[in-house]
């Protein structure tokens, strides 16, 4: 792929803390390589800001290889930027051209309050997991893999759901700020396996109750979540969660 350099205009949301009002700041940045990742471009910006005696832009990041889910940025109107099934850290600057203007915002949802600049508090997701996203028996050491047989198609569906990295892009994209795709991924992941199956009803009820308590909206099936999810979590999981939830409600 051809290498090129570009000059960009960045409009970035700056906010001191969750109490203060934020606003957009505009920065010019030069000589960005098309081979940089988006976060490396942000690093270049921050080094420049530090050199100039300004406060660097706070943003979440950890693995920088698309598996931890922390790098939440709403870039030009799309969570994680323009590429399909991709995280911000795996977005590369070859997605942009010289002279482009890029607007970067934090996730917007009451349940994800902004802590500083582009960092939001996603502990609501942790509390949803704590409400039931686990198996409450001690499974002990890893046993011989064939001692509990799992049908291949179920193992595959469960694995596909388990790929959710808890990034929150689904919430950020949803007009209702609904967390249904996230919750459904966690519920399906466990309910499809023999170890998670027995507790599936209480799990669905408790996780949905916590989700509502955290102030996420309700799902109206617009599919925006699925279209932006970096791990291509399918909305089929939402239908599965709904049926788990309804069956649990009917049988209790």
């Amino acid at each position: 792929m051809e290498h090129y350099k570009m000059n960009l205009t960045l409009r970035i949301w700056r906010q001191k803390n969750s109490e203060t009002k934020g606003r957009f700041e505009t920065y010019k940045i030069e000589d960005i390589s098309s081979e940089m990742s988006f976060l490396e471009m942000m690093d270049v910006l921050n080094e420049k800001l530090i050199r100039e005696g300004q406060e660097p832009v706070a943003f979440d990041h950890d693995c920088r290889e698309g598996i931890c889910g922390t790098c939440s940025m709403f870039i030009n109107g799309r969570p994680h930027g323009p590429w399909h099934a991709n995280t911000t850290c795996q977005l590369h600057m070859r997605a942009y051209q010289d002279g482009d203007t890029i607007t970067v915002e934090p996730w917007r949802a009451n349940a994800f309050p902004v802590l500083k600049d582009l960092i939001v508090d996603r502990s609501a997701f942790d509390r949803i997991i704590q409400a039931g996203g686990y198996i409450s028996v001690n499974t002990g050491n890893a046993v011989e893999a064939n001692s509990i047989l799992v049908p291949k198609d179920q193992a595959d569906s469960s694995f596909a759901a388990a790929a959710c990295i808890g990034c929150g892009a689904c919430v950020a994209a949803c007009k209702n700020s609904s967390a249904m795709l996230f919750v459904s991924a966690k519920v399906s992941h466990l309910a499809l396996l023999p170890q998670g199956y027995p507790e599936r009803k209480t799990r669905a009820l408790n996780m949905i109750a916590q989700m509502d308590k955290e102030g996420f909206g309700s799902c109206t099936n617009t599919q925006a979540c699925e279209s932006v999810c970096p791990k291509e979590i399918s909305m089929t999981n939402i239908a599965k969660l709904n049926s788990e939830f309804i069956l649990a409600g009917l049988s209790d």
Partner: protein
Amino acid sequence: MSLTGIFLISFLVVHVGINACIWANDGGGMFNLASHFMATTVVIRIVEVGLFAGLVLHIVQGLVLEVQNRSRRKTGYAVSLGNKGSKWYSRSMGLLGTLLLFFLIMHLSHFWVPSRFTELPSTEINGKEVANQYAEILRVFQNPVVVVLYVLGCISLMYHLLHGFQSAFRTLGVPNGKYISLIKGVGFGFAIIVSLAFAMMPVSVYLGWVS
């Protein structure tokens, strides 16, 4: 939301079926008989109460849902995802539903109120006295403004159903893969065919295709 939606969908099937009788081209005989049956049968009257209850419930649930969901994001985006992630009508069910509500008020005042609370001129079919609802249709749809409003109402209905039909089944947890593509297909066909059939009724009357 989903249950009341599916209930109202089932009503649309009956409604469109009966109205299609105007195309029998028998001077409204078949249609008047059908609407006479609907207006005078006790069971239907009871079902009608259920229908209004379902409708009111659907409207109230819809408004509450819309208000709640809108309140979940106090600060909006400067650049929004818009149509990049979802269809506009799937995000506009509140708006489409409100348009349908206005349409429905007009529609009920055109046909349901007069037939229920006033004495319509009657006509005789096979020796039976029945209200001439058909003449009402011919009269109301002489006005081009009314025809245009009805067609707009049907367009709102189409988009409302395009999303609502499949969304209702998803909310009820109809799983997975194979069924959802069937439901999407049926929902798409249903939305188009039913709305088109409804829209063609005032149009056919206005253009004199039925008389």
